[in-house]
């Protein structure tokens, strides 16, 4: 039985981290939006680690926040421990990570979505996308047909999900939720090729059975930083009481159990066909691949404030359940552990992201967008980052506006999407700071300076938030200006201060900005030298310090970006037939025709396209530009 259930502008399939940001962006930009989720209680679920952020992922969360997304605010509201990673290293690689109360996070997001004006959420399995050269809507398992002009697919690991535990395997989504088996066929009918990826998660234990006295305590930071720029001065969030995590290790006994049972691992027996990520290998993978390592770290992370359930980070596995029990119990503190949930591997269908445009719209299927794990990424933050971009661009598509595309020099989000779409991926893709060419500029501390304006222009950032941002920016710029003009004379008082700070004396007067470049000096400890210093918020002071201290290096990166932008700005039309371009190598023709890059820059990052091919392309577009009109007339 089919029935007409309603009319929307945009439909989002999936209620995970990508789906949420996509749905919120679309609704907030004024589009009538419907979001479908297989089980309402798994909205914003964290089926793997109960934490948000981490190296480079923390950057993504802050970028999402600057653009007007929700993840940062939700994480701030629901964190139970917060830590700035890499704080002993330079500012470019500082990364915020927070342990999250998983249920609270779910409720926070669910409630946010429930209260969103243009958004409706439905518990239903979408079985079909209705498409006849144009997106018409979707159909659910119960026969409801919802019309829409665009669809955003954010199915995560649910598409034909298959859970594997040792010799046992069954159709399932994550966390025991049932999978989406039908939608894959619908996508294939539309001509979309699907691939199989694999990921996994460790067991959850009841902490009442664990002996924490045998483990090292892991505390959060005293001086908490928030993900959201809105919360920078929110005392309630900053002063929240934090929980403890614990650290323990595997040992040779653990490894013995694994080695003795390795033949029962589906990864080794060939049962698992999906391609797993190198960055989150199972414990059996680690033990087999790194035979010399006598121990591996295991972190115990609470799943929330009002539960005993703990996540055993570092020990994901797909070994049989009884082997798992034996294996976990070899670990100090886990001798009496009982698994509340076993570790498992999960296989799922995903698409080849090189079939997407940088806007995340599927090439050749107008109005169909993809975001999150279904694109071959992994991680909540990577998913959310794609979600907000897909939500924005589906909206802009309906409004006939140019898509919002962040490039590699503007945001980690840009690096993430460009990597996926241009280079593709053969394994679940994880963001890392080392993937960014311009790490020194794409810092987590300046995500607002980089992206708030874009968020405002798109329409996701409110006038109020934007004005507050402009004010902050003005404070930063004028203070930098002041510091650059502030002269410090080589008098006795100043030299005494410098001596006390372990810095060499001045022979001649210098600008304060020059002094700040000395490693032993910083903005805070030079206050005595700088009597007329205004009272500024901490986040402003931080920016002033970083921007002055690293000025030389920042300048070099800005220069590199100029070169990069020149190639990005040389656009390539999607109607070019590369088969007909004489001079291109065979491989380049095929790859270019398949991917249809939007610029010379993007083309240059496709593997198999050589510098010689790029020369040919440059020549080609110059001919087009030169002949301009007469050419295009012929084409009409």
């Amino acid at each position, binding site marked *: 039985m089919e029935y007409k259930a309603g009319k929307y502008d945009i439909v989002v399939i999936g209620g995970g981290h990508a789906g949420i940001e996509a749905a919120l962006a679309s609704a907030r930009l004024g589009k009538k939006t419907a979001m479908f989720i297989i089980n309402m209680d798994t909205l914003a679920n964290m089926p793997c680690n109960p934490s948000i952020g981490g*190296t480079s992922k923390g950057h993504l969360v802050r970028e999402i926040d600057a653009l007007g997304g929700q993840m940062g605010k939700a994480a701030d509201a629901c964190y139970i421990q917060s830590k700035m990673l890499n704080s002993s290293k*330079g500012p470019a690689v500082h990364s915020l990570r927070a342990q999250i109360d998983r249920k609270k996070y779910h409720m926070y997001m669910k409630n946010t979505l429930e209260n969103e004006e243009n958004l409706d959420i439905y518990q239903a399995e979408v079985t079909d996308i209705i498409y006849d050269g144009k997106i018409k809507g979707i159909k659910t398992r119960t026969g409801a047909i919802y019309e829409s002009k665009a669809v955003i697919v954010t199915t995560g690991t649910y598409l034909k999900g298959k859970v594997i535990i040792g010799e046992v395997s069954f159709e399932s989504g994550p966390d025991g939720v049932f999978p989406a088996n039908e939608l894959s066929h619908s996508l294939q009918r539309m001509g979309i090729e699907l691939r199989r990826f694999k990921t996994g998660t460790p067991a959850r234990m009841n902490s009442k059975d664990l002996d924490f006295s045998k483990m090292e305590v892991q505390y959060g930071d005293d001086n908490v930083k928030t993900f959201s720029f809105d919360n920078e001065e929110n005392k309630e969030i900053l002063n929240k009481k934090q929980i403890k995590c614990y650290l323990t290790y595997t040992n040779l006994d653990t490894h013995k159990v694994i080695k003795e049972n390795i033949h029962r691992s589906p990864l080794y027996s060939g049962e698992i066909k999906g391609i797993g990520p190198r960055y989150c290998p199972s414990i059996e993978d680690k033990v087999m691949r790194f035979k010399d*390592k006598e121990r591996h770290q295991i972190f115990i992370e609470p799943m929330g404030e009002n539960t005993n359930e703990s996540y055993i980070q570092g020990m994901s596995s797909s070994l049989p359940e009884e082997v798992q029990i034996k294996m976990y119990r070899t670990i100090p503190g886990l001798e009496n552990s009982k698994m509340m949930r076993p570790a498992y591997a999960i296989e799922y269908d995903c698409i080849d992201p090189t079939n997407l445009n940088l806007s995340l719209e599927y090439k050749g299927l107008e109005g169909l967008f993809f975001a999150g794990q279904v694109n071959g990424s992994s991680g909540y933050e990577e998913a959310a980052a794609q979600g907000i971009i897909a939500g924005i661009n589906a909206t802009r598509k309906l409004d006939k506006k140019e898509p919002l595309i962040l490039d590699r020099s503007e945001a980690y989000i840009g690096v993430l999407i460009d990597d996926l779409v241009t280079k593709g991926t053969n394994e679940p893709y994880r963001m890392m700071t080392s993937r960014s060419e311009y790490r020194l500029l794409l810092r987590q501390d300046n995500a607002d300076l980089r992206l708030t304006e874009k968020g405002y222009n798109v329409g996701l950032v409110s006038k109020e938030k934007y004005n507050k941002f402009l004010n902050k920016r003005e404070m930063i710029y004028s203070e930098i200006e002041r510091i650059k003009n502030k002269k410090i004379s080589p008098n006795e008082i100043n030299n005494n201060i410098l001596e006390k700070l372990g810095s060499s004396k001045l022979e001649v007067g210098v600008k304060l900005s020059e002094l700040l470049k000395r490693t032993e000096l910083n903005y805070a400890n030079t206050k005595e030298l700088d009597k007329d210093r205004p009272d500024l918020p901490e986040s402003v002071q931080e920016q002033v310090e970083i921007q002055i201290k690293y000025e030389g290096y920042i300048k070099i990166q800005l220069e590199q970006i100029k070169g990069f932008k020149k190639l990005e700005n040389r656009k390539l039309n999607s109607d070019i037939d590369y088969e007909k371009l004489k001079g291109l190598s065979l491989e380049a023709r095929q790859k270019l025709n398949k991917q249809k890059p939007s610029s010379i820059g993007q083309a240059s990052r496709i593997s198999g396209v050589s510098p010689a091919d790029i020369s040919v392309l440059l020549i080609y577009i110059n001919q087009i530009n030169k002949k301009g009109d007469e050419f295009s007339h012929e084409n009409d």
Partner: protein
Amino acid sequence: MLTDTIAAISTGGNNTGINIIRISGENSKKIIDEIFTASDKLDHQKIIYGKILDDDKVLDEVLVSYFIKPNSFTGENVCEINCHGGRRVTLNILELVIKKGARLAGPGEFSKRAFLNGKMDLSKAESIIDIINAKTKLQTKIATEQLEGGLYNIVKTEREKLIELLAQIEVSIDYPEYDYKELENNEIINKLKDISINLKKYINSYDDGKYIKDGINVAILGGTNAGKSSLLNILSNSDKAIVTDIEGTTRDIVEETVIIDDIVLNIFDTAGIRDTEDVVEKIGIKKSFAIIDKVDLIIIVIDLLKGLTEKDKELINKIMEKNKKYIICLNKIDVSHEKVGKVKKQLQSFKNVIETSFFTKEGIDTLKNKIAYMFNLEQISNDDSIIIVNQRHKELLDKSYTSLNKAINEIEKNIGVDIAEIDIKNSAKYLGEIIGEEVTSDVINKIFEKFCLGK
């Protein structure tokens, strides 16, 4: 890519009378302004006479023409330097131009730019593409052939070390909580210094390569009648001597190239030697010191009949001061054997003192062997140590070396390994450009190959 300023010698061959260096791009005039002095002003399609200066040193007297875009061969601002020095002078000027910010042009690059800027008509399009393609391929082919042997391996080895180090640094950044011992700063510095020493060795080998390809620049200095012209005659009359003397009326240095036993010697100021027998006297002490700057080796001829004169001493002191390679010939050993003892004693603190008679040709073989030994030539031709001969390779090695030392400096100053890492990455990138590999994915692959990470 298409926006920087490029330069290259656009005339072929080693022994052409005139060489043209073409500079194309936004900064071409700026570069010329920095190195060219003339009484007239440069203007579109005008040819101006003047001097190329490296600081205050005159490299050559030249004619420079200037074409303002789009009315030039490439459609960009173009300057052309017509220099009439030998190969060596031309290369010196090219190096100066590159030092001032131009990049060495790739094969076919001027034509490519000309084409891109619409200076050629459409019918030529396909043939130009073919040429560019063919050239790039040929270049790749030559490069691979050249690279296949030693160079490829050494660059790969050093780059591999950098990638390994980067992976270790990156892993501590991207996985801060894993129990891998983080590298201490001094460990990183030691590793970088190791690589840096090797790179420097290869960079220096470019000079060795140059000595083989382009010859050793030699000045023969000494007092009147000491035997300089005799020496020159002995050298020039050897079997394979090639004389490439260009009648230079306006220049103060005339070059003569002789080849003895496969060693190429470019002898400076031969005219001066022949004319008056006393270069110092003729051109003045100051100018003769200027010659010292320009050459790789100075042969000082001392007349044993006169003993060590004040002028000789002054000359030797100057050479020491400039830290130049030298050979002192105690000449006329055949007729003044008794004086050798005294002069040798006076010069006992100096190496490379030999006894010669240009009349009986005694000591000439010793002289040749000494030269070969000093410039490592025998070693180079005998063992298979790597010599960098390609200027592009040398440029990239230079850049890699500079980045590496910047990184060392940054770590020493405690600026932070995440900053230094940018320079280490660049260093690896430049090496990668020699052998055509990319850094980022290599580092990430290495991280997962070497380290055990994950949830």
